[in-house]
C-alpha cells in the first residue's frame, strides 16, 4: 500500500466537569448562611474597615478577623461593564451589567450583576438593591442579581456607616458549598497520535523512529524524550510481541466486565523500542510468564485490541527483551 497524504488531524469533544466541593470557615459560613436568610454580613478589620464580602484574614495585616457586622441590602455601583451576550453559567440569561457594589455600611465592593434594560440605564454611583433568589441554599447565587433602586442617599440604607454587630449564628449553618464547573474543549491529539489512531482503525500499530537514537516509540508523541528531537520516521510494528512483565489483578474494577483474576502486562511489539500495556487472555492466569510470545485479538468494531493471546511460539530469550522491561 502506498503512503496516502496525511489525513486531517483528529478532533473530538472533551468535556471536563467537576462538582467542586469546599468546606467553609466560620466567616464564610456565616456570610453564606446569611444570604440564605436574606441577611448580608461583613467583617470588621482591626482598623475598622468593613469588608463585604467578608474574609477570615485582614488583607493588609493578615490578622485573623471574626468581628461580624450586618450591612444593608442596598448599595452604590462603584464600576460596571455592560454584557450584551451572557455566557453559560452567568447569573442572568438576558443582557446585564457586571457591577461592583459597595453595600451601605460596607467599605469594599462585592462583584455581582445588575438587571437593567440597557447600558444607558447604568452608571457608576447608581443606587441598587439586592434581588433575592426565590430558592436560596447558602451560596453567592442566593443573590439573584441587583436591581436599580430609587433612593438618593445611603442614609436610607439599614446600616449606614454604623453597621450593627451580628453574632453570625443562624439555625442550621451552611458549612460547605458545591460549585459545579464545566469546561468544554475540542481535543486534538496532533499529527503523530492521529497517525497512530488512524492506523489502529486498520488494525495496524505504527510507531515513529528517532532519527538520532533509532528507538521506535509506540504510541508516537512526535518527540524522542531522550534526544529531544522530532520523530518523523513512521514504522509499522508487531502484530506479535513479547510479554516483558505482568501482574495478576484480583480486584474487580467498577464497570469493568472482566472476570478476576486476570493478567495485565507490558507487551513489546516486534520492532518497537518500548512496551505497550494490555490484558493477556487465552491462557490460565497462573501460566503466564515473562517472555511469552503474544498477538493482539480484535473484536468486531473495536478501536484497539481487546487483549493479547499466546501465539504458540517458543518463549523469547530474556536477552532479547531485557532492555524493554
Amino acid at each position, binding site marked *: 500500500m502506498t503512503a496516502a497524504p496525511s489525513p486531517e*488531524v483528529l*478532533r473530538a469533544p*472533551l468535556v*471536563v466537569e467537576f462538582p*467542586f466541593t*469546599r468546606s*467553609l470557615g466560620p466567616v464564610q459560613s456565616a456570610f453564606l448562611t446569611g444570604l440564605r436568610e436574606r441577611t448580608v454580613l461583613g467583617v470588621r478589620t482591626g482598623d475598622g474597615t468593613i469588608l*463585604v*464580602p467578608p*474574609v477570615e484574614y485582614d*488583607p493588609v495585616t493578615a490578622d485573623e478577623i471574626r468581628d461580624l457586622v450586618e450591612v444593608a441590602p442596598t448599595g452604590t455601583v*462603584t*464600576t*460596571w*461593564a*455592560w*454584557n*450584551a451576550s451572557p*455566557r*453559560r*453559567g*452567568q*447569573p442572568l440569561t438576558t443582557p446585564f451589567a*457586571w457591577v*461592583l457594589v*459597595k453595600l451601605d455600611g460596607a467599605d*469594599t*465592593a*462585592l*462583584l*455581582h*450583576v445588575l438587571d437593567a434594560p440597557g*447600558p444607558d440605564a447604568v452608571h*457608576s454611583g447608581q443606587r441598587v438593591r439586592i434581588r433575592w433568589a426565590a430558592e436560596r441554599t447558602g451560596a*453567592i*447565587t442566593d443573590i439573584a442579581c441587583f436591581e436599580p433602586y430609587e433612593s438618593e442617599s445611603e442614609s436610607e440604607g439599614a446600616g449606614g456607616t454604623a453597621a450593627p454587630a451580628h453574632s453570625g449564628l443562624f439555625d442550621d449553618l451552611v458549612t460547605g*458549598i458545591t*460549585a459545579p*464547573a464545566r*469546561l*468544554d*474543549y*475540542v*481535543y*486534538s*491529539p*496532533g*499529527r*503523530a*497520535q492521529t497517525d497512530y489512531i488512524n492506523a489502529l482503525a486498520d488494525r495496524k500499530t505504527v510507531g515513529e523512529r528517532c532519527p538520532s537514537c533509532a528507538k521506535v516509540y509506540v504510541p508516537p*508523541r*512526535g*518527540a*524522542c*524524550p*531522550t*534526544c*529531544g*528531537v*522530532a520523530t518523523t520516521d513512521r514504522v509499522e510494528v508487531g502484530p506479535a510481541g513479547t510479554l516483558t512483565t505482568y501482574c495478576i489483578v484480583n480486584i474487580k474494577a467498577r464497570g469493568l466486565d472482566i472476570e478476576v483474576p486476570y493478567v495485565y502486562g507490558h507487551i513489546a511489539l516486534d520492532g518497537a523500542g518500548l512496551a505497550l500495556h494490555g490484558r493477556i487472555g487465552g491462557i490460565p492466569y497462573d501460566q503466564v510468564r515473562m517472555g511469552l510470545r503474544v498477538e493482539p485479538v480484535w473484536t468486531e468494531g473495536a478501536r484497539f485490541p481487546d487483549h493479547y493471546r499466546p501465539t504458540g511460539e517458543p518463549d523469547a530469550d530474556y536477552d532479547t527483551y531485557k532492555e524493554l522491561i
Partner: protein
Amino acid sequence: MRDIAIVAFAQSDHLRRTDECSEVEMVMPVLHSVLAQTGLKTSDIGFTCSGSSDYLAGRAFSFTMTLDGVGAWPPISESHVEMDGAWALYEAWVKLLTGEADTALVYSYGKSSPGSVRDVLTRQLDPYYVAPLWPDSVALAALQAQALIDAGETDEPALAGVAARSRGDAADNPHAQLPGARPQGDYLVQPLRTGDCPPIGDGAAAVVLVAGDRARDLCERPAWIRGMDHRIEAHSLGVRDLTDSPSARLAAERAGAFERPVDTAELHAPFTSQEVVLRKALRLGDDVRVNPSGGALAANPVMAAGLIRLGEAAARIQRGESDRALAHATSGPCLQQNLVAVLEGEAQ
C-alpha cells in the same frame, strides 16, 4: 551576587489554532532555536524550568508531555510553574543566583484553541464568592476600564490609540498574530471593544539564562538582569483600587527600575486599559518606547505572553536598540500579580 544574563530568545509564530501540532511539537522548534543560538547542548543546561496551565489543555499534568522535547535522559534538574513562563524565568534566575546552576533553559507555552479561554480563566478566581458567577476575563477587564474612564484616566479614543499603536508596531514582528492596525470593532463587554482585547491563540517561547562571563562567550551583547521582583495584591477585586497597580509599582521599585530611566518597556497588558494603569504605576514617560513588539494586543499565547515580554526586551538589547529596558509580566484578573525585570546591555 552573580551577574546573570538572557543570552537567547525564541518564540513561535502565534496562531489562532495549531491542531496539527501536539504541545511538544509546538515547543520543540523554540527549544532547538535557543540552543542553536548559543551552541549549547541539552547536556550543557544546568536547570530547566517551564510554565503552562493544565486548564488550557483540559488535561492533568499536561506539562510532562512537553518534557519530551527537552531530552530528559540522562536525568535533568527540572521544575515547572503553573503560571506564565515569566515566573519560571524568575525561579531559574534564583537558581542561578544561588550558584546551584550556571545555565538555565526556560520555556512556556499555551494552546488556548482547544477550549474557551474566557471561561477557562474563570477557574482561577475565588471559588466561594466569584467563580460561581462565571465572570469571564473580558468582563473583569471591562470593570477596570470603566473605573479608569470614570476616574478621568482615559477614554475610549485613547484606548483605541493604544490598540492602533500596538498593532501598527506588530507589523514589524513576524511572529505576531495581529500585525497591522485594524478596526476597533463592536463592544465585547462595554466599554471594551474587540480591538481593546487580545487575540486568542496558541504559541510558545524559550530563553536561555547564563551566569557570569560565560554569557559574553555565548552572546555578543548579553541582556544582563539587573533586578527582578514580583508582587501580588488582595484577590478580592472589590478591595482593590482598580485604577492603580501598587504591586507593579513595588515590584518595579525592588527591581531597581526607578534608579535610572529606562528607554524601552515591554508591558504584559492584554487589554488596552491595562497599559494605562501600568504606564502610571511604572512611571513611564512619553519618551519610553512601549511595546515595540506589539505586545500582548498583537499576540497573547496565555502562559507564554509574559515570558515573551522578557525575551523581546532582551532581544532589543542584544540588537543594540536598547541599553536599559523594563520587562513586565502579569497574571490573574485586572493585573492582580505583577513581575518586573530590569535588563541592561553594556556600553556599545
